[in-house]
């Protein structure tokens, strides 16, 4: 049984249609990648799921039809880390984390400790203004905030963007642990196809708002067209 199912989802920005009927699935505890060139509709797909962009078509989450409003999808257990991290720059690191747990009634200190275990750097910078953190630290903060929500599904938009390879490695290591320790499903959008395929079980390739290839990572790596266009060999 899938955690997330998209059936023929369409989305538009004003007069421009960005998604022309995208269907995909994510199972429990699975990491799935969405690949494609710039403008293919990867970010839009995530936005369509979280409700940040107007969509039509069916989205089923945990067996129920998913609301179209971002604050409701958050309550349903979806955490979306958008392009550009989406951190609250003027608030402190600690306040950012607090906001992550907004929809839950929990002991904030304990939850934060969990996050600090994964990202000790954040604990050091607890009271610092989030906007002054480096790119890598902001990505950690964004992930930490998502973790505070204990989501069932994590939507990640281009986590590797603008980050040094070492930092990217750390981040994906954390993602693997989140998956194994807590059974969180991850839908990750990445331009770095080989990185994504190394971690994800399955992947979808988008082109101009349509799914053109789908399959397991192995299948995609063996696919000649995918190799040539996205893996570079």
């Amino acid at each position, binding site marked *: 049984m899938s955690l997330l199912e998209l059936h023929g989802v369409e989305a538009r920005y004003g007069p421009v249609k960005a998604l022309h009927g995208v269907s995909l699935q994510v199972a429990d505890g699975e990491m799935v990648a969405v690949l494609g060139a710039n403008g293919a509709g990867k970010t839009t797909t995530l936005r369509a799921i979280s409700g940040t962009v107007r969509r039509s078509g069916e989205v089923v989450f945990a067996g129920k039809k998913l609301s179209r409003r971002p604050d409701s999808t958050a309550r349903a257990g979806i955490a979306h880390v958008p392009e550009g991290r989406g951190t609250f*720059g003027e608030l402190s690191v600690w306040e950012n984390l607090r906001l992550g747990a907004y929809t839950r009634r929990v002991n904030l200190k304990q939850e934060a400790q969990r996050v600090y275990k994964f990202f000790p750097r954040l604990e050091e910078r607890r009271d610092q203004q989030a906007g002054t953190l480096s790119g890598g630290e902001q990505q950690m903060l964004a992930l930490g905030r998502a973790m505070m929500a204990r989501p069932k599904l994590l939507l990640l938009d281009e986590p590797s963007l603008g980050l040094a390879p070492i930092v990217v490695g750390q981040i994906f290591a954390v993602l693997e642990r989140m998956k194994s320790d807590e059974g969180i499903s991850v839908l990750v959008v990445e331009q770095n196809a080989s990185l994504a395929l190394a971690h994800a079980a399955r992947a979808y390739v988008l082109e101009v708002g349509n799914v053109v290839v789908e399959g397991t990572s192995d299948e995609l790596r063996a696919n000649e067209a995918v190799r040539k266009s996205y893996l570079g060999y």
Partner: protein
Amino acid sequence: MVVAAFTWTEFAQQLAAGIREGAIYAGLALAIVIIYRSTRVINFAQGEMATFTTFIAWSLMNHGLSFWTAFPIVLAIAFTGGVAIERIVIRPVEDAPVLTIVIVTLGLALLLNGLTSVIWGGANRQFHGPFSTRTIDVAGVPVSVQDIGIVLVSIGLVAVLALFFRFTKVGLALRAAAVNPDSSRLVGIRVGWTFALGWGIAAVLGAVAGMMIAPVVFLDPNMMQTILLYAFAAAVLGGLDSPLGAVVGGILLGVTITLLGRYVGFLGSTLKLPAALMLIFIVLLVRPSGLFGRVAVRRV
């Protein structure tokens, strides 16, 4: 420059008068800051909203209610009104250019001012505040109980608000929604309602400010207009997103204007305000976000 004969007693009196003036501006400045802090909108109708609710208080008291009985009723009405105004008038233009929103609040001010005149007429009225007007002796300086009451109320409000914003979940949500509405939605905050809440709280603050001021200046529909100007100046001086700044700014402004008026002869009463504004301008040059305003950090 003519500096008149200086006595410490008189200075203390002027200082006290200045603080009292300042506390008056501070109340309204606080309301302005709250709306700005939670919605990033400057509400030019703040003064008129306060006047309107004060008139409601007057009407209630005219029908026999005591001040303290009418007080919570007025606050409840103010809160509901603030929320309603935000949802009905401001929400449709939330995403419009700043200029548009400015005009809408100006229109709102005109509307409320006219409505107040129509319902209650333009005559001056006496408003009996909660504090007695007798004076007591504070270190040799006669100070009225009312003045002390006004200052204490202002400080109390600031304290409550600061605690609210800093330590409560809702307060954090209000701040977050103003700073980054998109991300706020992604964490589950209903941004529209946080805006409405901000307006509700500000309306309550305005109502309190109005009820503090009315006993001092007499109640009429245009009561708040000049005070609003001073309140804006105070809010800017203190930093538009700092409640503490609003009160400190207000008191500093009140003291400065009073002292300038008394001790710098050539300014007279006509140039007090321009001089004070000039000083604020200079402060802003040094600290562009006001005394306590948070400087927005932009990482490029």
